């Protein structure tokens, strides 16, 4: 057997799985988005979506969620990575503790936060009351803006560790000599960060951005558990709307059209990031 034949034989199982489980559904969704109850209806689903206020609200919620949570995660993740980079006593313990939110099921941690934000028995209200910041318990998950805030807190808490790991990896690849050269020039901490760390971290930041960004665009688990999209649909992202369109309203064609639009959005995002990623890196 030639080397190439053997190689292809080894890749075939992986490619078959990817073709059937990942590629086929994308093609199939695209096809379904032009149908209604199995009949071909052309672009009519897309026309309806264009006038669908619930879809517009869900898109805005998703975008808002994306543009608040992802930058927060990146900033906090970079901060924590810088903090955990150096050697200190107990570093292993702190690193392990910080990894815990990442390793636990998202739904389980969303439940933990739902209990923390509970209006009557929640510890968050209790602490605020004891500190005298609020006078009356607040129904955190029952008010539109506040429920959104709670979801962001839970999601950011869960996802920062992932960014931290990627950034820690990026920090390892920065040669020490660069910092030494700059400290000879008398540069302070902030300048070292701005002139060396940040530019050289760019690939790591982009990797974190791709992974976190696509996940944020499809956010489902934590919102499903914490608010179910409520109150009054104010925290419903696209993925939750698609889910109820399929499994509550049984409208597969319409849901598939939304999937196609969501797919194009993710693709656009991936392309933008990929374009930025492959631009010529900074050289020193």
């Amino acid at each position, binding site marked *: 057997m030639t*080397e*190439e034949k*053997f*190689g292809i034989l*080894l*890749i075939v*199982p*992986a*490619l078959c*799985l*990817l073709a*059937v*489980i990942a590629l086929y*559904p*994308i093609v199939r*969704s695209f096809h*379904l988005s032009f149908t209604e109850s199995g009949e071909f209806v052309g672009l009519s689903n897309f026309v309806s979506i264009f006038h669908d206020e619930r879809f517009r609200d869900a898109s805005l919620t998703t975008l808002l969620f994306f543009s608040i949570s992802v930058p927060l995660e990146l900033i906090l993740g970079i901060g924590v990575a810088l*903090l955990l980079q150096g050697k*200190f006593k107990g570093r*292993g313990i*702190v*690193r392990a*503790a910080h990894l*815990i*939110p*990442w*390793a*636990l*099921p998202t739904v*389980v*941690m969303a*439940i933990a936060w739902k*209990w923390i934000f*509970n209006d*009557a*028995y*929640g510890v968050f209200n*209790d602490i605020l*009351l004891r500190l005298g910041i609020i006078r009356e318990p607040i129904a955190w998950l029952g008010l539109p803006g506040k429920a959104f805030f709670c979801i962001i807190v839970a999601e950011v808490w869960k996802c920062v560790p992932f960014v931290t*790991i*990627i950034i*820690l*990896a*990026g920090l390892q690849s920065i040669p020490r000599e660069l910092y030494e050269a700059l400290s000879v020039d008398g540069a302070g901490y902030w300048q070292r960060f701005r002139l060396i760390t940040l530019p050289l971290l760019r690939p*790591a930041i982009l990797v974190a951005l791709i992974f976190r960004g*696509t996940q944020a665009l*499809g*956010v*489902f*688990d934590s919102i*499903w558990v914490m608010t179910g999209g409520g109150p009054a649909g104010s925290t419903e992202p*696209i993925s939750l709307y698609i*889910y109820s369109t*399929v499994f509550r309203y049984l409208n*597969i064609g319409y*849901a598939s059209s939304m*999937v196609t639009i*969501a797919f194009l959005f*993710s693709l656009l995002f*991936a392309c933008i990031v990929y374009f930025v990623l492959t631009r010529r890196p900074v050289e020193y």
Partner: protein
Amino acid sequence: MSTRSVLFFVLIGALFISSVAPFAWQLIASLKDSSEIYSVPVTYVPAKPTLNAYIDVFKSRPFFRYIVNSLLVSLGTTSLCLVVAALAGYALARLRIRYQGALSFSILVACLFPQIIFLIPLYQLMAWLRLVNNPLGLLLPYVTFSLPLAIWVLMGFFKTIPREIEEQAMVDGFSRLGILTRIVLPLSWPALATCAILIFVGPFAWNEFIFALTFMTRDLSRTVPVGIALLSGTSMYEIPWNQICAACVLTTVPLVIFVVIFQGRIIEGLTRGALKG
């Protein structure tokens, strides 16, 4: 101590506390009895610590069954994915194949889309294959979506094995398959172990939610995350919060221990995987 190092330790302390506090709060709540959990003001130390909630959760729901289902699916996913990824990763790292770059890139693309994109046709596919409520119905998608990261991590490792070892084995009359199974794979066990950990705690084995919610419609087929999520609120009768917290603690403690032991390996594994690409 200088102000700078005081600030450092304050930040480290804050990081530690914020990382474990929600989890610690679950633990405290799970030790309270049914009346204390709903008492106002909130108590921070259980007045009469009890394990009743842990016993009750097994009585009120087939929780043991959820754990067995989850173990079955996630261990199956981990082992099958490791085999498929090791084969593909080796081929992509070592063998001369046309369109190699395009192939490895298209494998990575699969993890660039949120799960909801795949959900509807996958559900239809599973229904057609009669895999709804069958662990295989989760195993197949989990293996597939874990593959990109696993292949990427293993590829990075295989590239670091010196070529001379394989060339010498060729001279010694090993077949291509023999080189892979009797030389390369045994040499790679640390990378394989790291990769197994990453698959297991990654988003597509023990922790996955939306596929499990959709493809497992019978109560007895459910996995732990779905079982727990359905404990709170949406079910026919409300389950007390101390039991919900007990269920959460039960499923998280093994993972916490796991993370504490393998913290170094996880960070190292993701480091290799994420940046060598």
